[in-house]
């Protein structure tokens, strides 16, 4: 039933010049669930997320958010739909000119016109939700470690209590312990705000921790989708090769990345 779908993507295509990155992606994310998309580097995972967010304009296809078509939407409607989203970027993408608390409060102050003091209170609450002390709020992003930056990025993504949260390779570049901490935080934060989550990763451990459902993207198409717990016995040669990390198999690594 399509009414239960928070995000519905059909036939999504995107090419850069002659380089076809997405070649007809179909994707369903049920309301309140967490979908994890896996795939190698340069298979179009990030491009897919950016198309759904409206940061890139797809060449063809349809994207529905809450049953509403967003491809070709007017700028004003787009802004309204954008308020439903939160995103944790791969490199955290914190604003380095602003202190940590203002980063977390940014969407509230700048996007929703909230009073600064009020927004700061919320920001400090969100920081403590990701395990950071209020003192950290006064620091600048450059003074934090990678793991702490990820936590701040997560606090920023959930600050405005979005309905949909995107996670772009949330554990990449972190040590295994910090990666596990972030995985657990993602699960609790998503539950806390009751959001629908869409993550992209190539970390299998992360997939098992944060995913209800999983899908695999290869050469711009979804080649497998199912429950996250079935990932180890998918019966799909692409997924098997990826999960076991074998060099031999149907997947050939592209030389160029995007």
């Amino acid at each position, binding site marked *: 039933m399509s009414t239960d779908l928070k995000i519905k993507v059909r036939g999504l295509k995107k090419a850069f010049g002659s380089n076809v990155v997405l070649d007809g992606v179909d994707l369903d994310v049920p309301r309140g669930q967490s979908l994890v998309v896996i795939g190698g580097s340069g298979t179009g995972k990030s491009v897919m997320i950016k198309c759904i967010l409206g940061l890139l304009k797809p060449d063809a296809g349809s994207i529905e958010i809450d049953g509403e078509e967003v491809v070709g939407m007017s700028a004003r409607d787009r802004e309204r739909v954008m308020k439903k989203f939160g995103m944790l970027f791969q490199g955290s993408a914190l604003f380095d000119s602003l202190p940590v608390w203002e980063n977390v409060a*940014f*969407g509230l102050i*700048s996007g929703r016109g909230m009073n600064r003091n009020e927004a700061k209170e919320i920001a400090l609450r969100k920081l403590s939700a990701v395990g950071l002390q209020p003192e950290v709020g006064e620091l600048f992003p450059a003074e934090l470690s990678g793991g702490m930056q990820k936590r701040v990025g997560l606090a920023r993504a959930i600050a405005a209590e979005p309905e949909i949260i995107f996670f772009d390779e949330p554990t990449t570049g972190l040590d295994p312990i910090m990666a596990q901490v972030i995985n657990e935080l993602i699960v609790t934060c998503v539950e806390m705000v009751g959001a629908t989550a869409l993550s992209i990763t190539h970390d299998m451990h992360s997939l098992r921790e944060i995913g209800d459902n999983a899908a695999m993207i290869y050469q711009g198409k979804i080649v497998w989708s199912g429950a996250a717990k079935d990932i180890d016995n998918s019966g799909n040669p692409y997924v098997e090769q990826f999960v076991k990390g074998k060099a031999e198999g149907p997947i050939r690594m592209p030389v160029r990345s995007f």
Partner: protein
Amino acid sequence: MTPILQPIGRTFLNGLSAIGRLSLFALVAVRHCLTPPFYPRLLVRQMIEIGYYSLPYVGMTAVFTGMVLVLQTYTGFNVNAEGLMPQIVVLSLTRELGPVLAALIVAGRIGASMAAEIGTMRVTEQIDALSTLSTNPFKYLIAPRLWAGVTMLPLLVGIGDVIGVFGGYFVAVHKLGFNEGNFLKNISEATKFLDVFSGLVKAAVFGFTITLMGCYHGFNSKGGAQGVGKATTNAVATSMILILILDYILTELFFAK
């Protein structure tokens, strides 16, 4: 024939599409400059950055330009008439040297830093992050910079004009022995509204050009550190060339009969 014509045609088409992209960017940017929400805090920060912190550079440029102008006019053209010297100094400074030199200095300072800052924000996905936080990057990043450029450059040039004329006065009176009172009187008589006004209009146009090129190249930078470096170079080089071209066009519009 084809192997020779092909690259020429391709370069020409690439040039046209670059002009098209830039014009489109400028149009969108201007539209966002005129529609709310506005960010007064960011505007003030940019005004201080462009106006206040450029003042020492513009001031130094102006004072030495005024000084050397008097010295060259005196030694090179053998102008020692008390009436003519102030006229030459005031006219050259207010119409031409003031706005152009100030703009070139600011292009090096501000254009580069804008392209580097916005370029880094682009390659570290901070610009994408703005969009996901319900904030339009054009309104948040570009509009305050354009406003600050358009308003601060005329202010800088106005101050530079005064400092430059004072530099000329200093050399004329204290080195070349012109009569102090007459020189000052002739300066005030030589100062014409249209000269000063045209210089300030030029300054506003140059301010727009510098900040636009800084934002445009930063906004469209690709790749990592190398891409940002390239954006910075392009921002400074293109705005300097554009300043000189626009200077001629504006002079033609103001003074050509």
